[in-house]
């Protein structure tokens, strides 16, 4: 038990300074515009994908998932088992529509399709939901700082908020993809090292973990119960979780922003593919650490901390060799900063684009809008800080983020599905669907015993059904309102043009279609993961 030594503190300061230096060297101080643009284009796709993953979940996964695993073993993996399927839906449905529409904020699509009220309402929902979730993301590094220094969490939340807001207002560094990649590897290194140190400290090593895990049912990842009140049944994970992740990755501006900024549809797909393949193994890794920690605590007769989010940071600080603890804690900090920077940026961008420049100050100068976006960053930083004070009561941070989203995003997803698939639905139906969808989620979650994983499914079903039925009470949308969601070439006269041109164009020859291959790959990955979990469970139960 070495604790957080001055050497660790030095490593932490050097690492953060180094990352900040890389950020300012490669992110802000280039001398020609070409450097900015080429900088992005020289980076391989896998690095961009890892960077997306790093901004999405790395710090809260590191902090929250081991607590989740400690409490419930691998059963909560079903929440993420659907991610490859969700990515298929995004690749096939959302990415092509969003990309073709040429939009900066996805809520613009809703305005073109349904009018300004739907855009304003949906953007507002995003701001409320993402602002709350940012509070949880802020809480995560504050907790780590509290473990390292011994200060109260409320004080460290304020310190972290000041750091995160100043850092974002000054320019941030989320654009520097390599720093995100480094952080991702540091966190994975930390996870693997925790496993190594934990397992070697057990007298029986791996066999102790496997025996304890099997005896305490921690490897029972697949629960086939049809009871909707069972939170982590396979069906809740597949049906509820699928809608959860499609909604989370497809209708939250902070998540889809990089997809919208990708130069092409294929690049956008690639960044989703990395998440589709890596999120399950990453979650499995951190949940497994939770199982190993449970074995460790049981064997050493230790009492776990009241807040299970502290489990892994506490272990890292106490058990890691001098210097390594500093490195891993620094990785958590830097990753959290990257997530906060990205979230605050998207919150301020939506505030300025969807509200300020439309309703408050139209046609102002660039400098004015820059100032407005900085003020918006400060506002959302304060909003998130207020919520961060309560985040500790929400259980594992990773579940808290998803639960907050599940109150809002189901109805939002339903509205996007109506916009894309129902050419009869209109503005009246969309607003009615959005509001009733959300009310349905809140009513069901407060009145009935239903797994929170179904919240998004309820939101989608209610908003789509009500939205469609209410749409029938008023006129169908005009043709130009459908232009973003109808594939232009399907019009009969256009088909004749394409047939004529195609008949006179040289042939290419048959090759496998890339998008189809990518989707099949994700489907196979889902089946392999499900099969592996079933095998593990079967072995654990003899």
């Amino acid at each position: 038990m070495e604790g957080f030594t001055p050497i660790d503190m030095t490593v932490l300061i050097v690492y953060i300074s180094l990352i900040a230096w890389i950020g300012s060297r490669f992110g802000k101080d280039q001398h020609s515009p070409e450097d900015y643009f080429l900088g992005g284009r020289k980076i391989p796709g896998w690095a961009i994908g890892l960077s997306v993953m790093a901004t999405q979940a790395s710090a809260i996964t590191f902090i929250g998932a081991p607590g989740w695993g400690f409490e419930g073993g691998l059963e909560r993996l079903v929440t993420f088992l659907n991610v490859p399927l969700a990515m298929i839906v995004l690749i096939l449905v959302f990415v092509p529509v969003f990309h073709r529409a040429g939009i900066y904020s996805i809520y613009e699509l809703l305005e073109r399709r349904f009018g300004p009220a739907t855009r304003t309402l949906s953007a507002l929902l995003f701001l409320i939901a993402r602002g709350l979730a940012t509070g949880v993301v802020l809480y995560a590094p504050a907790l780590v700082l509290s473990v390292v220094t011994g200060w109260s969490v409320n004080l460290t939340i304020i310190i972290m908020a000041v750091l995160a807001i100043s850092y974002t207002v000054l320019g941030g560094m989320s654009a520097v993809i390599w720093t995100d990649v480094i952080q991702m590897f540091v966190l994975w290194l930390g996870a693997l090292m925790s496993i190594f140190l934990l397992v070697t400290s057990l007298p029986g090593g791996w066999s102790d973990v496997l025996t304890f895990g099997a005896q305490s049912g921690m490897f029972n990842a697949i629960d086939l119960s049809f009871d909707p009140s069972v939170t982590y049944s396979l069906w809740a994970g597949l049906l509820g979780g699928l809608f959860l992740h499609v909604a989370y990755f497809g209708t939250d501006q902070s998540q889809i922003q990089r997809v919208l900024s990708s130069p092409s549809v294929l690049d956008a797909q690639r960044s989703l593919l990395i998440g589709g393949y890596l999120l399950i193994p990453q979650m499995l890794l951190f949940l497994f650490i939770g199982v190993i920690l449970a074995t460790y605590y049981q064997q050493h007769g230790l009492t776990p901390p009241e807040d299970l989010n502290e489990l892994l940071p506490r272990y890292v600080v106490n058990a890691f060799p001098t210097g390594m603890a500093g490195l891993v804690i620094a990785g958590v900090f830097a990753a959290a900063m990257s997530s906060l920077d990205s979230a605050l940026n998207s919150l301020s961008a939506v505030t300025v684009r969807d509200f300020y420049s439309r309703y408050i100050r139209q046609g102002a100068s660039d400098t004015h809008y820059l100032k407005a976006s900085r003020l918006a960053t400060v506002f959302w930083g304060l909003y998130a800080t207020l919520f961060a004070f309560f985040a500790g009561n929400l259980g594992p941070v990773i579940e808290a983020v998803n639960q907050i989203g599940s109150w809002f995003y189901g109805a939002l997803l339903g509205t996007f599905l109506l916009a894309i698939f129902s050419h009869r639905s209109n503005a009246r139906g969309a607003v009615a669907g959005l509001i009733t969808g959300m009310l349905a989620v809140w009513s069901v979650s407060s009145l009935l015993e239903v797994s929170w994983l179904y919240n998004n499914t309820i939101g989608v079903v209610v908003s789509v059904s009500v939205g469609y039925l209410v749409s029938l009470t008023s006129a169908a949308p005009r043709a130009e309102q459908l232009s973003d969601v109808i594939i232009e070439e399907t019009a009969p006269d256009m088909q004749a043009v394409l047939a004529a041109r195609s008949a006179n164009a040289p042939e290419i020859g048959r090759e496998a279609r890339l998008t189809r291959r990518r989707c099949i790959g994700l489907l196979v990955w889902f089946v392999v993961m499900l099969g592996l979990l079933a095998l593990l469970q079967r072995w654990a139960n003899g």
Partner: protein
Amino acid sequence: MAERLTLSRQLDAHAARRRLGRLGATTLEPAWMGLWAAPLGMTGKSPGAWLLGAKEMQRALLLTGAELPVQVERPDTGIQLTGATAPTPEATQRLWLWERMAAPRLWRIQALDTPPTPVWLPCWLGYRAGRTHQLTVISGLSGEVLSMLKPLVLAGLARAHGHTQAGNEKTLPAG
């Protein structure tokens, strides 16, 4: 009005065939899209990149490089797709503002106060005949899929088809 410059095609037929084949197209043809290039750069310095767009486009395409990769020759083989209108300088400035809001690291780069240059952008059009005929547009510069250009390309193809048909009707013997 300034003469329309021709950007040189960097993706040859072989590479385009491979690229479009991976995307499911079964036939392909070269095309040229008439657009406008607005220079981007630091104030008081020469351009470092270009914003390619038209009034009808919601978002512009980004082309890096201090100079436009132009060729002396006019567009050779391939259909020329016209009909797009020039964006106003104010629209270009605003378009670039939102691009910078979406990617804050681009903040220091500005749309320079120079009128946009009309250009021919080389493209490759891939066709796929299934239950319906589908079109894929890729850039003749980089090979990237240009979904945002599709409405303009379809409108251009329809216009060209209309002209061809009108021409055929004219040449038919009366009676």
